[in-house]
C-alpha cells in the first residue's frame, strides 16, 4: 500500500460562527471520508505528539472477526493541542477510550479523530480538551 496511499494529512481550520473565513491547511477531505463517520472503543497503545499532526493508536476488538485491530487516529497539530490545554501523558497507553471520527479512504483501521472520550468522561477534540470550551 505504501506509495499508493495519499500522503495528505492535516487540519481544516474553521472559525465557526465568527463570520471568519475557513482556512484549509491541507485537506482532511483528500484523506478521510467525511460522509463515513466511525466510532470505536478500545485501549490506547500509543500517543504521539508530533508534527505536523498528532496520532492516537488504539487497539480495538473487532466484533465481527474477534481479532484485535490496531487503529491509528490523526489529530491536530501538537502545538495547538498543547496551547489549548492538552498535557503530555494525560492520555497514555492502557487507557480505555471511545473515539469518534471519520474513516480513512485508504485504510480500514485509520481515521481522523473528531472526539475522544476517556473512561472517566473527559472529552478531547481534534485540538485538545473540550472542557470549558
Amino acid at each position, binding site marked *: *500500500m505504501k506509495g499508493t496511499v*495519499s*500522503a495528505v494529512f492535516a487540519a481544516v*481550520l474553521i472559525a465557526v460562527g465568527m463570520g471568519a473565513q475557513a482556512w484549509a491547511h491541507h485537506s*482532511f*477531505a483528500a484523506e478521510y471520508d467525511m460522509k463515513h463517520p466511525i466510532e470505536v472503543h478500545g485501549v490506547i497503545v500509543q500517543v504521539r505528539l508530533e508534527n*505536523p499532526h498528532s496520532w492516537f493508536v488504539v487497539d480495538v476488538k473487532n466484533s465481527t472477526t474477534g481479532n484485535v485491530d490496531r487503529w491509528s487516529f490523526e489529530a491536530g497539530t501538537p502545538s*495547538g493541542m*498543547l496551547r489549548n490545554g492538552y498535557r503530555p501523558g494525560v492520555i497514555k497507553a492502557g487507557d480505555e477510550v471511545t473515539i469518534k471520527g471519520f474513516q480513512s479512504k485508504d485504510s480500514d483501521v485509520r481515521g481522523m479523530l473528531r472526539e475522544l472520550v476517556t473512561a472517566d468522561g473527559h472529552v478531547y477534540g481534534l485540538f485538545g480538551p473540550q472542557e470549558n470550551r
Partner: protein
Amino acid sequence: MTIMKHSMMTAAVAGTLVWSSAGAFPLAAQQASTEKAAAAPIPRMADGHPDLSGVWWRGGDIGGRGFGGAPRGTPGAAAPQRPTTFSDLYQPWALAHSKVLADKHDPTVHCMPTAFGTLNVSLFDVGAVGQIIQTPKFVVMLTETFHGFQIIPFDGRPHRDDVPPSYRGDAVGRWDGDTFVVDKTNFTGDTWISAEGRVSFHSDALHTVERYRRLDAKTLEIEATLEDPKVLTKPWVVPKQTLQLAPFDQIYQLACSDDDIQSFKDATPPAISGKN
C-alpha cells in the same frame, strides 16, 4: 483537490471544530496583560531601533480561543473579495503544471518547510506562532513546526555568495526608519510558498521583501512582496498581516517524523518509542 472538496469538507466538519472556546490561558489575566502591554511604549534596543523580540501570533493557536480569522463582515453585506494568492498569478505553463499537483505533493507533508509561510506570515512557516529574538547585529526568526530559523544580519552586509540555495533563502535586513526590511533570495525550488491546501510551488528565482513594523508594544504589522519571474506574471503583494504579542515567551520544540507519517498511512504503526 477541488474547491468542491474543500467546501464539502468544510461543511462536514464545521460542527466539530469550534474556535470560539477557551484556550490554555485565563481570559481575564490575558486581557489584563495585553492591555498593560498595549499601554507600554514600543520597546527599543540600545541603538534606538525598535526591538521586535517576542512570540507573535494571531491571538491564539490553531484550534484555540482567539485564533485570528479574517475580519468579520457586516451582516447583509456582500462577501469580501478573496485576496489574491501566489498561485493566482501563475504564468500559463505554471498554471497548467499546478493542475497536475495536489495536496499530497506538498513538501511540508514530508517535514520540509515552506519558502514563505502559512497564513501569509513568513514568521510562521507552517503553523500559527513564531518567535523573534533581536540582538544588536541580528534579528533571528524562529519557527515552531519544523524547528526553522532565519538569521537576518542588519549591519549592511550583502547577500552571501558562498552558500548554497536553501529552503528559506538567504536573508539580509536593514532599517527603514522604524520598519525592519528583510530581503531574501537564493532559494531552492524544492518547496512551496505555503501549506494551506493550495498548490503553491515556486522556482529558484523567488525573491521576497518583507517589512516588519511594531505598531505598539503588543502589535506587529507585516507587509511583503514576492516576485518569481520564472513562474509569476507579476509580483505578488501579500495581504498586510497584523500579529499580536503572545502571552508566553518561548515556542515549542516538537518532532516531525516523515517515517512515522508513512507508517501510519500504511497502517503499521512504528514501534513504541516512549513518546507521548
